[in-house]
């Protein structure tokens, strides 16, 4: 059982990922990674304990929690990643390397992992980390009482752990597959062999929490204790989080910093305010998550600057319809709405420097995307005819919902206009705050007959494979299929492709046929693929810009020279 994770960032692409994948996935994928280095002539490393790095967290005004078991928004996930860490992490080439675990061994059947914790691994409060804490943390994210249960992050990322689904579904009260063999050794048993397990462990659901800290009270996360590079020293509500170096960070505390400030920029105008603050020197890094790039209206003016970084992403923004509620339970109506959209106008609206038109489900670069698909092209006349054939009542109330961030409002207004001009249908827009929107998506999944009629959402790849785009989005019943799209032939095709290990060509063909079905019946109405873009001040060095935003594999290499 998977979950809608429109807000969870995927931190995974790159040569490394492709290399680790088993034969199921053939074509390696190359994604640019850029290490931001100091401009020539500037000496790195200024006085220790003096540097201040100010990082924009676009998308929220105030986190409701810093509990990794519950956090799901990209900015909050990023913040937790500075305070907490897990057994493994990713390096600059996005390969899995040890973090809290010094080493691990994999059994012959590849279903059992045994992790050895680093010697003297301590929490930020000085207490020793034990395998018990790790086991506690992992169970916690799955347990419906403390984490998200079946619809939470834990169930999504860690579903392959033996007993995970039972715990998440409330059928068991302990996690069968995770066991502390001794205070320094942890054993994890999987249900099925997986190429991705270590990557899945890298996400926030694998973060190590201190049992003592978590059980200290309801608001323990206001004084969180973790194994990450920083400690939360001040939470200025509705403004920022102030972090200071964690003296017990095992690779060595990033003491070059006096503090790292994570500044909130939420609401409709958040990214714009962040951009303006960057221009006036009030913040050093903006647009660091794939989901909140530099606002498209500003990109043309900054795209040639050296501090601007941009890359295509495996991300697609799309409209999905509720297949179980009128009027979109009728495929012809969905097709009409799809054909009434002129993607080129959206690209013009947001700028070619920021987005690319996307008419199919698989973004270019994902294996299988070289196989063609016949998309539903813009055809206003055809759309109107379809609507007429479907006997659509023009007085029907149509509401499309979306989360307020970035350019969403603009895109929706353009869509509304296109549906008005090309179909004569007056669609009502329902802007919702991100978390409220997430909640409504989940509600729609649980009871489609009472859920949203249509929504605008986004998907970013977890790993470079069509399974992540086809099976995991649109198969009947999967967690991300909030619109309840269902087609028996589609299901047959993807079920076969999912287990096809030997014949890669056959596998991709299967997904391709399924994709065509989904396009014909508008399981998704894909619109465009946005680039990720960040701006990093030239005096900040050591950050790594990837197609999934900015990552920091090595805090000791990061400098913020001017602010010292």
């Amino acid at each position, binding site marked *: 059982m998977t979950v809608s994770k429109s807000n969870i960032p995927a931190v995974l692409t790159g040569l490394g990922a492709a290399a680790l994948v088993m034969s199921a996935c053939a074509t390696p994928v190359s994604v640019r990674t850029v290490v931001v280095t100091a401009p020539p002539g500037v000496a790195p490393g200024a006085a220790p304990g003096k540097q201040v790095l100010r990082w924009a967290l676009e998308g929220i*005004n*105030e986190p*409701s929690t810093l509990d990794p078991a519950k956090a799901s928004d990209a900015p909050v996930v990023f913040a937790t990643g500075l305070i907490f860490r897990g057994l493994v992490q990713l390096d600059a080439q996005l390969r899995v390397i040890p973090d809290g675990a010094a080493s691990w061994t994999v059994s012959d059947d590849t279903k059992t992992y045994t992790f050895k914790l680093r010697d003297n691994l301590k929490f930020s409060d000085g207490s020793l980390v034990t395998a018990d804490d790790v086991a506690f943390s992992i169970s916690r994210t799955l347990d*419906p009482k403390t984490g998200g*249960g079946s*619809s939470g992050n834990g169930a999504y990322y860690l579903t392959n752990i033996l007993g995970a689904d039972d715990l998440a579904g409330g059928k068991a009260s302990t996690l069968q597959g995770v066991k502390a063999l001794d205070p320094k050794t942890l054993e994890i048993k999987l249900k099925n062999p997986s190429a991705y397990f270590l990557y899945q462990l890298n996400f926030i659901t694998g973060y190590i929490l201190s049992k003592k800290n978590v059980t200290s009270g309801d608001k323990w996360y206001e004084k969180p204790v973790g194994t990450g590079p920083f400690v939360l020293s001040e939470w*200025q*509500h*509705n*403004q920022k989080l102030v972090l200071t170096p964690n003296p017990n960070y095992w690779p060595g505390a990033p003491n070059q910093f006096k503090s790292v400030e994570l*500044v909130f920029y*939420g*609401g*409709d105008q958040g990214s714009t*305010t962040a951009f*303006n*603050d960057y221009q*006036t020197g*009030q913040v050093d890094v903006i647009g660091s998550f794939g989901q909140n790039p530099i606002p498209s209206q500003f990109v043309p003016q900054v795209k040639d600057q050296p501090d601007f970084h941009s890359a295509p992403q495996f991300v697609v923004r799309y409209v999905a319809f509720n297949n179980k509620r009128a009027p979109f339970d009728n495929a012809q109506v969905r097709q009409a709405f799809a054909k009434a959209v002129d993607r080129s106008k959206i690209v013009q609206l947001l700028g070619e420097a920021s987005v690319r038109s996307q008419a199919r489900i698989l973004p270019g670069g994902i294996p299988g995307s070289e196989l063609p698909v016949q998309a539903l092209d813009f055809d206003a006349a055809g759309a109107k005819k379809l609507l007429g054939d479907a006997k659509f009542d023009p007085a029907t109330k149509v509401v499309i919902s979306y989360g*307020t961030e970035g350019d969403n409002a603009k895109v929706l207004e353009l869509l509304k206009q296109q549906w008005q001009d090309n179909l004569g249908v007056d669609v009502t827009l329902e*802007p*919702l*705050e991100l*978390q*409220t929107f997430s*909640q409504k998506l*989940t*509600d729609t*999944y*649980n009871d489609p007959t009472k859920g949203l009629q249509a929504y605008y959402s986004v998907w970013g790849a977890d790993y470079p494979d069509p399974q992540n785009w086809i099976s995991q989005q649109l198969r009947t019943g999967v967690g991300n299929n909030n619109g309840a799209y269902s087609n028996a032939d589609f299901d047959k095709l993807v079920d076969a492709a999912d287990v096809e290990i030997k014949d890669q060509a056959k596998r991709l063909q299967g997904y391709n046929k399924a994709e065509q079905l989904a396009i014909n019946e508008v399981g998704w109405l894909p619109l465009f693929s946005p680039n990720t873009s960040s701006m990093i001040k030239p005096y900040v060095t050591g950050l790594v810009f990837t197609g999934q935003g900015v990552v920091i594999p090595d805090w000791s290499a990061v400098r913020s020279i001017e602010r010292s």
Partner: protein
Amino acid sequence: MFFAQFVVRRLASLVFVLFSITFLTFIVGYLAPGDPVQAMMGAHRDPDTYARLRHEYGLDRPWLEQYTGYVKGVLRGDLGKSYRYAGRPVWELVQQGMGTSAALGLAALAVSLVIGLPVGVIAAARAGSTFDRLSMIVMLAIFSIPSFVIAGVLQIAQVTLFKAGLPNLPTSGWGELRFWVLPVVVLSGASTGYMARLTRSTVLETLDADYIRTARAKGATPGRVLVRHALRNALIPIVTVLGPSVAFVVVGSFVVENVFRVPGVGFIAVQSIGTRDYPVIQSVTLLLALTVVLMNVLADVAYTMLDPRIRTT
């Protein structure tokens, strides 16, 4: 005897006002659309938890009982629980912004007094002069023009000046003094205009009064007349003007905090509109209304103390 009667009447009307405010905010919250418990529970929708939450939030009681419960809660400082931040008391969320809003508001009031009063006095002293006409037009303009227009003009000026290389003031956030400049300037507009104009008319009235002419006839110099007699009596209505001025500042803070992203209660309230977190908006409205009422009461008390005529009537 009369004073006691006066106090009792004042108290009664105060109680009525407090009742009105709480009643109105309660009614709006009561009639608010959507089912908050359902919204909160989302995915995990089992009937037992639903019923339990409904009971916890007091939503299963008749409306009159809910109202009295609401008022009792308000008196205790319990403003209900947030819908969006599951179960967290609204008071806790709102109180994060109170200090900031209070600082911003007081600074704006201070600026209005410092500018508005002197301008009004001088305009009255030189009634009919160019200064008088000009300043009153300017004050009317500042009073009428919406604060976000002034904010926009200042931002435009900022952007152009910044492009020309001049240092700039932050247009968002809160912290040291430089963050205060733009929001305070914009917020003080309406109350400055109002104070200037009202001060002018009150001073004019007092200058005309009989006792002033008597003083003049007795040979007091115009300056002395102005300071000794006019000003002291003009102070009384100034105290009364503080009431509406606080109202302007309080309502204005909604806009200013959102345009300049100052993390006060107005900012929190508007952000909570997007999250459909009605208890928060409700509570902020209530708190702001109560602030205005409180200031009005204080102004009334000061007024009574300053004007001997009231006491003996």
